[in-house]
């Protein structure tokens, strides 16, 4: 596959017009928008619902071992154990880069968070997460926030609204779209799911299996091998995005997406690849932004958490409360922000999910107000009917 189109830079039409644009690579995608000033905001959407209890295990809570037994990650200090986040929470060892940022006070870990919705449907929850509302809207909260900015209205006419733009950046502010030439390739997990469907067809099934073998996939439906193209695509895309964000006249807002989190089976094996991709991507982002990292905040969110207990396939099902990360030189990091609800059975939501105690909208609103310095009406426009979720203070360095 060719290199990401990092040359899509100032001077190209989309940016000259002050519009947003997207680029995509494999299962990951990025979209951009311009913004006056030097502060950068990146939102990374983890599609498929990352298991927060797995990635940030609350090893200080005795309920964790009770719920997850042998599936719980070893405590910090043990072999294959979590990286410590200060005594109560650990971090998955695949996120070593993020852990270094945490040690440098550049990463904030938020636990027991969720949006205001209680949907356990991926699609509905992703739409609500991106809409920033309790009902599905046709525009995303980030687009509506950008609407308030002075330079976003000048060049609306005449550009087709891109079809590759995530809902988060869709809306009245026109958004161009861009995709690299050639065909994207699905992740290995998706290929295996397709194989399972194709297997029912006596004519297509064997040929499809042969095609998979020729491309080097294992002929099995459950496998934990770390070969997903996202493993490499996401860091490359993040690097390209960082270069664009670093340009003097480049975009100031980017949205990236990465899938592979829907770990209904063999979770421990399957989650490692996406985590490493995310970690490498964040490192690329920091390196590529260079001095601009100091004015950057990266919000990493997923549509919901997963069940507190494991299912019968060494995986977890759709849950509620989960984890978000806020990373960047502008972030007041080095801590875990959590009103911890506890994992004892009675504290679980519906006796199955981590009880959410913090609204994702508060985080986003805090970033819009304190990082992008948007006026109050713009923040309100981004998140309608969100009075109950006050902007979170103290997310950023003074």
């Amino acid at each position, binding site marked *: 596959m060719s290199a990401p189109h990092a040359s899509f830079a100032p001077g190209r039409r989309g940016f000259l017009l002050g519009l947003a644009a997207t680029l995509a690579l494999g299962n990951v995608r990025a979209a951009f928008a311009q913004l006056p000033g030097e502060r950068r905001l990146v939102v990374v959407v983890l599609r498929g619902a990352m298991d927060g209890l797995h990635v940030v295990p609350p090893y200080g809570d005795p309920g964790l071992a009770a719920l997850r037994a042998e599936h719980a990650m070893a405590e910090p200090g043990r072999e294959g154990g979590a990286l410590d986040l200060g005594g109560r929470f650990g971090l998955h060892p695949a996120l070593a880069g993020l852990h270094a940022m945490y040690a440098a006070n550049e990463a904030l870990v938020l636990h027991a968070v969720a949006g205001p919705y209680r949907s356990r449907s991926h699609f509905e929850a992703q739409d609500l997460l991106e809409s920033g509302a309790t009902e599905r809207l046709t525009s995303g909260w980030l687009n509506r926030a950008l609407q308030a900015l002075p330079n976003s209205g000048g060049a609306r006419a005449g550009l087709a609204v891109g079809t590759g733009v995530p809902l988060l950046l869709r809306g009245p502010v026109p958004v161009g779209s861009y995709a690299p030439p050639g*065909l994207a390739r699905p992740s290995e997990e998706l290929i295996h799911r397709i194989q399972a469907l194709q297997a029912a067809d006596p004519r297509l099934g064997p040929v499809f299996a042969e095609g998979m073998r020729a491309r080097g996939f294992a002929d099995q439906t459950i496998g934990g091998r770390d070969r997903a193209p996202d493993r490499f695509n996401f860091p490359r895309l993040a690097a390209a995005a960082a270069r664009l964000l670093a340009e003097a006249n480049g975009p100031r807002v980017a949205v990236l997406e990465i899938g592979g989190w829907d770990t209904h089976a063999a979770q421990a094996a399957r989650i490692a690849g996406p985590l490493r991709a995310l970690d490498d991507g964040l490192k690329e982002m920091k390196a590529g932004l260079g001095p601009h990292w100091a004015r950057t905040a990266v919000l990493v969110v997923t549509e919901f958490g997963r069940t507190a207990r494991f299912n019968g396939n060494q995986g977890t099902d759709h849950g509620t409360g989960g984890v978000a990360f806020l990373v960047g030189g502008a972030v007041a990091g080095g801590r875990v922000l959590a009103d911890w609800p506890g994992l004892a059975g009675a504290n679980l939501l519906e006796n199955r999910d981590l009880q959410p105690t913090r609204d994702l909208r508060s985080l986003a609103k805090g970033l819009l107000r304190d990082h992008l310095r948007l006026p109050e009406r713009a923040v309100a426009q981004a998140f309608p009917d969100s009075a109950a979720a006050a902007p979170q203070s103290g997310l950023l360095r003074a």
Partner: protein
Amino acid sequence: MSVRPFIAAIRFGLGPRLGEALPADPDAWLAAQIASPPPPPQGPSVAQMLLAREESQALNRAQAATPGGQRGPVIELVRAEALAWAERRLTTASPFHERWVDFWMNHFTASRRSGITAPLVGCMERDAIRAHLAGRFADMLWHVTLHPAMLTYLDNLGSIGPNSPAGQRARRGLNENLAREVLELHTLSPAGGYTQGDVQELAKILTGHSVVASGSNPGYIFRANAHEPGEKTLLGRRFGEGEGAAAQALAMLGTHAATYRHLAVKIARHFVADNPPAAAVRALETALRESNGSLPAAQRALVRLREAWEPPLSKFRTPQDHVLAACRATGAGAEQVVAGLAALGQTLWTAPQPNGWSDLAADWIGPEAMMRRVDWNYTLAGRLARVEPAAVAEAALGPLARAETVTEMRRAGAVRDALTLLFSSPEFAHR
């Protein structure tokens, strides 16, 4: 919902369209498309295309030092033809009619791989195929055979009667290409029992039918001085000298019993099964013969075939079928269709040989071809505006969607993955 409207839309049409109701009465829906087909679309004429081609060539000669391929107005026109083709198939209210057009375009393949033919293929669809779909096969045959796209594609420009003034002067002779393909592919087929002598005789009959590619009035021309003089004998029947003999010979071939049998097999293979049941072939053959080759009569016989309605869907979708069906089911645009055809190896009107694109699954089902199709599905799904996967599945397949596919789609972690699963399911792969 009953399965019959879905079969009508998938098997006879181009796949259901998102947001469009399926026909309540599929038989009436098909009958209406047979009885009153839509008017042919507008498009550039042969003369306009050839003039644009000449202009482009002049431009290229002037800029010979500049690197880069062909440029100029003809490229734009050809691109516009492809987009118009796609747009029409995405939005038509008569998808059975459009599939019927494409079937005949493939039967009479004129490929854009041949330079001078490239800009003329769309003209052939309008002038020779669509214009004669309401009539008899023999008339279509005549107009296609003498259309500039076919005359150039199968080299009739270079076929000179050896005893004609031009042949005597230039010491040049026959080019049998067009005559051979008319007999082998377009009419009798080898089962019709013609000989090499018949090929040569038909080639002689066709001499002189040519194309002026440049000048102020480019297009079809009969060059009397290249026409082979004297009487010719084709399949035992004698044809006189001159321009009119081609029409007479083509009328004979176009109404031949072997031609009707050949066409019946091809129609049944396209609409019913790779190995069509003999009864279905017989019914189509009878309809053609008894109506003197009426194309609407063949269509009426086709939609009455019990075998054409029987689930499960057994015809493997060619890349063209697949791309159109996926784009219609999701509201994707003409650009996606044109790019999709290229990505999956079936660029519009570029069949590698005069026998056209294969209608057999075995020629399309290959390991890497299937992987590429999944890649394309995934690429398309990533470029779509927000659509509801369950709604797309319901629109595209209705009761034909298997429970396994619906379950996997529901469990997918992203809209894009769910749509990829749908388009990559075995039921979506068939029509």
